[in-house]
């Protein structure tokens, strides 16, 4: 240990992260103290790290954070995540940002500041690669002088920002690849809430709890899009067919349009109301689709079903199929009609929310369509109060599955009940 150079000690102590651990380590010996001063690149003040943080007043926290940061030099990754703190005052926050301006590459900050600090203006911009902000307001973005030439990842959670500023912010980040927006408060100027975002470099997007009337997203390099718990009337995604991964969970969207879906490999929809013909038309050209999941989806038209023939014909490369939706009595057979097999499906996941006789029939029908199946996972929702009838249903279901699987000895079966 004695022979390790101080930079290596600095490297080791930088992996500690938690400020308290770093400070304690600095009291070990002179070399370690020097390592903490001059060779520390990461420092984190996270309320999860140390229970005593909760007992300290906000002012004491401001003081200790300031003292600790100011003992370092060349900090590259700073993380301040204090869930129990209502707000920090502007002066210390500005001090922390200005002190680390020249060297900061990653910043995570989640405490409200009062009065509001324009974090984007105060933090180091030249080297910043990752920015994760929560519970703050962003006002007045000016790309002419405010540019983030290295920013690759931007995460905004519970941030108040205008649609225009958000759009400008993206243009100020020429290398941005990942954008996450969670529960933003988006201020609109028009009466119709329209947001237009454009970035040729964005690869992965995560949107949660967003509520907009009209949203136009132009992302020529987009590979992955995840929407959760959003309410959108009109969502238009313009791109060059690079989208590979699409996940939509608990989203209500009246009109969804995705340009160029030829390269989609994974489609995962859950708790989603689909207008099947329209949606199908959008994804029918996704011949490279490997994974399709339709879970807890509701069809807009009650007579709509997912017919396997269409799936088998349009998605020949499909290897993983997950289906769980209300099986309408008369329509099961209709959905299973057709000669085309799902040759490449190796994993099948089928779920019920309310157990019925039809389910086992459906499973049987699907097993027949997947000649190369390796694994079957059955997902069930078992209610707490089980009536005699429900128990009977579950029992007969179990028996029918056991019998069924005797025909498919090579298929591994798993059950997941919740």
């Amino acid at each position, binding site marked *: *240990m*004695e*022979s*390790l*150079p101080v*930079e*290596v000690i600095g*490297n*080791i*102590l*930088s*992996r*500690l*992260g*938690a*400020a*308290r*651990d770093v*400070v*304690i*380590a*600095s*009291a*070990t*010996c*002179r070399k*370690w*103290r020097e390592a903490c001063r001059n060779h520390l690149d*990461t420092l*984190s003040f996270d309320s999860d790290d140390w229970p*005593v943080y909760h007992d*300290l007043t906000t002012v*004491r926290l401001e003081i*200790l954070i300031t*003292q*600790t940061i100011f*003992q370092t030099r060349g900090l590259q*990754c700073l*993380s301040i995540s204090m869930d129990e703190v209502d707000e920090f005052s502007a002066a210390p926050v500005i001090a922390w940002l200005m002190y680390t301006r020249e060297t900061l590459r*990653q910043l*995570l900050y989640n405490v409200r500041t009062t009065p509001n600090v324009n974090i984007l203006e105060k933090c180091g911009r030249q080297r910043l*690669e*990752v920015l*994760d902000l929560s519970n703050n307001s962003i006002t007045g973005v000016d790309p002419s002088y405010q540019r983030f030439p290295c920013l*690759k*990842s931007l*995460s905004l959670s519970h941030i108040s920002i205008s649609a225009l500023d958000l759009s400008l912010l993206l243009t100020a980040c020429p290398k941005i*690849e*990942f954008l996450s927006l969670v529960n933003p408060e988006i201020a609109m100027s028009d009466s119709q809430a329209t947001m237009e975002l454009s970035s040729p470099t964005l*690869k*992965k997007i995560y949107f949660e709890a967003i509520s907009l009337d009209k949203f136009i997203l132009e992302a020529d390099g987009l*590979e*992955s899009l995840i929407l959760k718990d959003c309410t959108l009337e009109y969502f238009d995604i313009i791109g060059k067919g690079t989208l*590979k*991964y699409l996940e939509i969970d608990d989203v209500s969207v009246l009109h969804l349009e995705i340009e160029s879906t030829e390269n989609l*490999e*994974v489609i995962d929809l859950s708790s989603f109301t689909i207008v099947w013909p329209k949606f199908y038309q959008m994804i029918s050209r996704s011949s490279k689709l*490997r*994974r399709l999941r339709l879970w807890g989806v509701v069809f807009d038209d009650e007579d709509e079903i997912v017919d396997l023939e269409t799936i088998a014909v349009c998605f020949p490369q499909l290897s*993983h199929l997950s289906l769980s939706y209300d099986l309408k009595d008369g329509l099961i057979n209709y959905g299973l009609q057709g000669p085309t097999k799902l040759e490449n499906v190796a994993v099948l996941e089928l779920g019920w929310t309310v157990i019925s006789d039809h389910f086992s029939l459906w499973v049987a029908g699907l097993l027949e369509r997947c000649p190369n199946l390796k694994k079957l996972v059955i997902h069930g929702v078992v209610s707490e109060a089980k009536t005699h009838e429900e128990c009977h249903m579950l029992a007969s279901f179990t028996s029918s599955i056991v019998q069924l699987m005797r025909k498919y000895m090579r298929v591994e079966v798993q059950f997941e009940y919740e």
Partner: protein
Amino acid sequence: MASPKVIVLRTCDGETFEVDESVVYVSETIKNMIEDGCGDGVIPLPNVSSKIFPKVIEYCKKHVSDFESLKKTSNGDEKEKDKDDDSSKKGKEAVPDVEEDAEEKARVEELKEWETTYMDIDQQVLFDLLQAANYLNIKGLLLMAAEKAASMIRGKTPEQIRETFNIKNDFTPEEYEEVRRENAWAFE
């Protein structure tokens, strides 16, 4: 494909090792030396012992494939991290991966297992590894070893840390007092 070039290296205690060029290229230091024209003779490694060298080479062999592709592109990008190096993901990743498929997941799992086994080493080997990875400039290995060392520090008092790593407390009483006072909050 032409047969891979073999590089001869000599550790500080005089032993020589013959290793494929692609494998040693994982070390930035050796790579630079080769590019500077030293590849034909014996490359001396004055700060690496013959005891730790095989362990280092084991790491390099495992991580060759990522560096093969990196070699072809410009080597200026310092931030280009090992694709498989899980330990390089600290806290927030710059760009989270696009959804992995089953094959990718299996590969990541396998690598994690390999890393756990690889890092099941005693303290002396750990320090030698840190020393070697630093000198040979193998970022992924240095990161992995540093994480391991950090895990041995976390949660301990200064005295416990000194005991674990056999460190001498070279603070004067005044210096130590100053350290404690400056950061009193952490010692409560």
